């Protein structure tokens, strides 16, 4: 009898359990949607015969792509008083992977979300910061000082491990003496490399990377994986591996095994600030540059740079092909998404500021010009989700920081978009980042693109539940961006390879500007390529322009 009661009870329990499961599976207790990018249109450009234009609007320069590189090119041209250009953008909004969103709680990024404070070695970025009113002081001969309210405010980062949150990104709790020794030894190596100078006084790692030394010894770092470099130097600490793998995933969407050692070290060495310049031997190293961030992430810069192309930005314009009817004339064929009509531009110069895999499809002559290497560019897919929260989740340990990292997760954790808005209570937006760092990017991309909203949302919630068991009831909305080609991947041999060198060269009046050309998807690289391309174009059109770079 009792046995029967037990069986009945457990049957009942199993039944309610399965009902609960089914209810969970049927729907999540919040809304949301998949946001672009416009993949159908992108693929249509590749696969379909979109109509060609028959009339051509004359213009001196066409900039293709309104990401940071394209907008920076426009900013440079406008800065020269050169106004005869248009910017064509496939998406409905400018910004590329730096674009931002906004809702009733506040603004949030859809991708890139901070910039390290610029050093005076990077005058272009200092100029931009000055123009945006971000600098407290910018005295000749001194490092520029960013206003306090734009620096990432404390607490900057925390990590979830052993069931609670801890301050910082490197987990000190439970670290052995050997872990600590290796951690310190790694940073000694970083300091050594950061203060290294070649015969011409160039740094091994500088921002933008165009200023890096091309010394063969440093180039050799690019021919090994970061993991191989670590193992050769007898680094074995799993904690150190974790931290470095995290930074590879964070900056490049790749792992210790799929990132070149040069790129992996760039992350740590390039942002070191020198106290005494010019004296390499006595150089004392300071901390890394502080980070500058806004609630809307690098959307802040998109908005500012966008002012340079006011009235000249055409969003929803998919460039289908670029032809050269005669020497010195370029025909840009585009498809206006709204009117569903072909639009043409006749330009003297084109700045192609889109990713290189798109260039492949719209510039038929590119294959002839560059037989090798275009397939060398591979891009990491990413999933980015913005979680609009009614309230903040309960949590044990160190309080909510700007950057919140889960140790035992394939994700990068989340950034609190509301943090830089000074808000510490009530509704918030968490921006969650999930890279796909596998070597086989095609398979990862297919996997990501096969996921619908619910699959994406479930992935995010299941991951965050490890640290926030009550996260589901805090979420009011969860929106997802699936970036098929989020950023170029600096695999071994790529950053100093032939393909990259070739890709920077203009082809028949088409100049290129994109982070792809650095192998490092960083704001500074996008800006530098935009400025370089704009200055190349200005020079070729006969303008005597002093370089801003």
């Amino acid at each position, binding site marked *: 009898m009792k046995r029967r009661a037990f069986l009945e009870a457990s049957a009942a329990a199993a039944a309610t359990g399965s009902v609960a499961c089914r209810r969970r599976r049927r729907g999540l207790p919040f809304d949301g949607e998949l946001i672009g990018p416009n993949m159908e249109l992108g693929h249509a450009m590749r696969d379909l015969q979109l109509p060609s234009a028959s009339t051509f609007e004359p213009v001196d320069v066409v900039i293709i792509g309104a990401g940071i590189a394209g907008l920076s090119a426009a900013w440079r041209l406008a800065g020269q008083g050169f106004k005869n250009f248009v910017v064509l953008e496939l998406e409905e909004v400018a910004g590329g992977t730096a674009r931002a969103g906004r809702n009733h709680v506040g603004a949030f990024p859809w991708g890139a979300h901070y910039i390290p404070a610029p050093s005076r070695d990077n005058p272009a970025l200092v100029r931009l910061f000055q123009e945006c009113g971000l600098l407290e002081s910018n005295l000749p001969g001194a490092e520029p000082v960013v206003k306090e*309210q734009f620096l990432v405010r404390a607490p900057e980062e925390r990590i979830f491990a052993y069931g609670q949150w801890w301050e910082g990104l490197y987990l000190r709790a439970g670290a052995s003496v050997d872990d600590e020794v290796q951690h310190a030894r790694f940073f000694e190596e970083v300091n050594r490399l950061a203060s290294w100078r070649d015969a011409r006084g160039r740094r091994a790692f500088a921002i933008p990377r165009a200023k890096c030394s091309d010394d063969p010894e440093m180039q050799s770092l690019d021919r090994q994986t970061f993991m191989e470099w670590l193992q050769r130097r007898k680094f074995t600490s799993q904690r150190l591996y974790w931290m470095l793998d995290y930074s590879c995933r964070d900056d490049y969407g790749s792992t210790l095994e799929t990132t070149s050692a040069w790129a992996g070290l760039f992350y740590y060495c390039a942002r070191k600030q020198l106290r005494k310049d010019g004296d390499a031997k006595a150089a004392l190293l300071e901390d890394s540059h502080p980070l500058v961030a806004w609630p809307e992430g690098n959307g802040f810069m998109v908005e500012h740079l966008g002012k340079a192309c006011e009235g000249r930005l055409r969003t929803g314009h998919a460039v289908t092909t670029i032809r050269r009817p005669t020497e010195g004339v370029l025909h840009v064929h585009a498809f206006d998404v709204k009117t569903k009509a072909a639009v043409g531009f006749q330009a003297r110069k084109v700045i192609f500021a889109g990713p290189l895999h798109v260039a492949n499809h719209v510039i038929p002559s590119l294959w002839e010009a560059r037989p090798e290497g275009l397939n060398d560019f591979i891009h990491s897919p990413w999933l980015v989700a913005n979680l609009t929260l009614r309230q903040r989740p309960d949590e044990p340990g160190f309080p909510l920081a700007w950057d919140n990292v889960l140790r035992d997760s394939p994700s990068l954790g989340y950034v609190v978009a509301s943090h830089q808005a000074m808000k510490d209570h009530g509704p918030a937006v968490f921006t969650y980042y999930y890279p796909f760092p596998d070597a086989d990017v095609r398979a990862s991309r297919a996997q990501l693109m096969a996921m619908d909203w619910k699959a994406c949302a479930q992935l995010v919630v299941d991951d965050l539940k490890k640290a926030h068991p009550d996260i589901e009831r805090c979420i009011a909305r969860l929106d997802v961006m699936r970036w098929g080609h989020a950023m170029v991947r600096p695999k071994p041999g790529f950053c100093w390879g032939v393909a990259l060198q070739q890709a920077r060269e203009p082809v028949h009046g088409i100049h290129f500007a994109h982070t792809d050309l650095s192998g490092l998807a960083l704001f500074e690289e996008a800006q530098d390529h935009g400025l370089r391309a704009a200055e190349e174009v200005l020079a070729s059109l006969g303008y005597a322009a002093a370089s801003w770079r």
Partner: protein
Amino acid sequence: MSDDMREAGLEAGAVAEAVPQVPALQAPLLFLSVLLIASCGLIYELVAGTLASYLLGDSVLQFSTVIGVYLSAMGLGSWLSRYVQKGLAHRFVHIELAVALLGGLSAPVLFLAFAKTQAFRPVLYTLVGGIGTLVGLEIPLLMRILRQQVAFKDLVAGVLTLDYIGALFASLLFPLFLMPRLGLVRTSLVFGLVNALVGLWSTKLLRPLLGGVFLLRVKCLVVIALLAAGVAGAGRFTLLAEEEIFQDEIVFSKTSAYQRIVLTHGRGSFQLFLNGSLQFSSADEYRYHEALVHPAFAALEAKGLKAKRVLVCGGGDGLAVREILKHPGVQEVVLVDLDPAMTEMATKQPLLAELNRHALQDGRVKVLNMDAMVALGDMAPSLRFDIAIVDFPDPHSYSVGKLYTTRFYRLLKEHLNPEGFASVQSTSPLMARRSFWCIAATMEAAGFAVRPYNLAVPSFGVWGFSLASPAPFAVPARTLPDLRHLTDETMQSMFAFPKDMDRVPSEVNRLDNQVLVHLYSTEWKRWS
């Protein structure tokens, strides 16, 4: 092993013929229950001793008396065991359940007894005596049950070994894991649960001695359910109990989106607590609020200026506003306090509204429920104040710490007239000397001329403030007549700092370092 046991069983069987046999294999499991009940017994003793020390102080006296009563009661229980003649197993299960209830509920009962009754000590010693007696009964009964199974020498050795090992186990577990992780209430409930589970388990182990076990098991399950519910609800209870420990009657309590607000009343005064920490006592708050408000006004008047527009940051209790409104020239007061529940209480709760003389209902006062950093950032640049009174909680967290940064003080300065004054609550220069001077250094870095001052507020101790202005100024000499604490002389004397509170060099607190939060928590740790 099983061979040894079987032999032992046979030997025991030869001794006691008349009694039904317990299958020999279960003896080791019964030994295991000795280990468990020994642990439980010691835990109850530790819970009672700790709780009494917490609530009554004098831990040596409390632990000695609790241990004394407990051990003697165990002796009583052992002696009483001789009167238990038959149905040993049945009685044993019942005793387990009784210990489970009495021991399991001991911590919540004692908390309530302290808060609700005048008879904490009688309840304490009765409870300790009761648990001790029952625990004293457990082991003799179990030994008599096992005597029929195990040779006497093995029995005594086994039971006493496990009894003492269980005690060691419990005495290590209690301070290292249970207290920090579970707290007193949950610990006692969880071990009550262990006792009840031992009871339920015994109905299986002792089955051959028990006959019908259905009713017994129902009783066990009822006790288990009761205690399990207690464990689940312990969080809420702890909050309740801790409130009961406020020394006086609670006249208002509310958990807002930002904090827990409690107002207590008793012995001729009342007190406001936010998240359990005292904000003011009506007995001496006038010292604090007079010192917070009037020196700034006095300094402005020394320049021949009158304050018309005043900003208050924090201070949702309305007491600073009460002092501000004593200055007849004041035309507008803007109060920025994060928590609407706080300003609403200051308006509607009769005791508090009377104490602040209905200041928040004055037509000149405008209340903004916003984070002060966000409010100042959003404020029109043209809006400037003659006086700013800054009265935030101490910088115990990053979200409050940001209101003590150069960024906040720069914003404050932007909204202050060039000739105006700000007065800032700056924690205790005695208890948190480095934190106090860090605040002054931070204000100086933001471009203020700063003159810190201090006074004694009995509820808090020695307390400090920072008087600041964009322009250099002298210590103010004259204040309002008819204040309760401040006179011209006492006001000037506040600006002197004894040697043990005098200036120490300090880092500047910035948004991107928040050094003050770390400094403050280190300094106050020494006093709590």
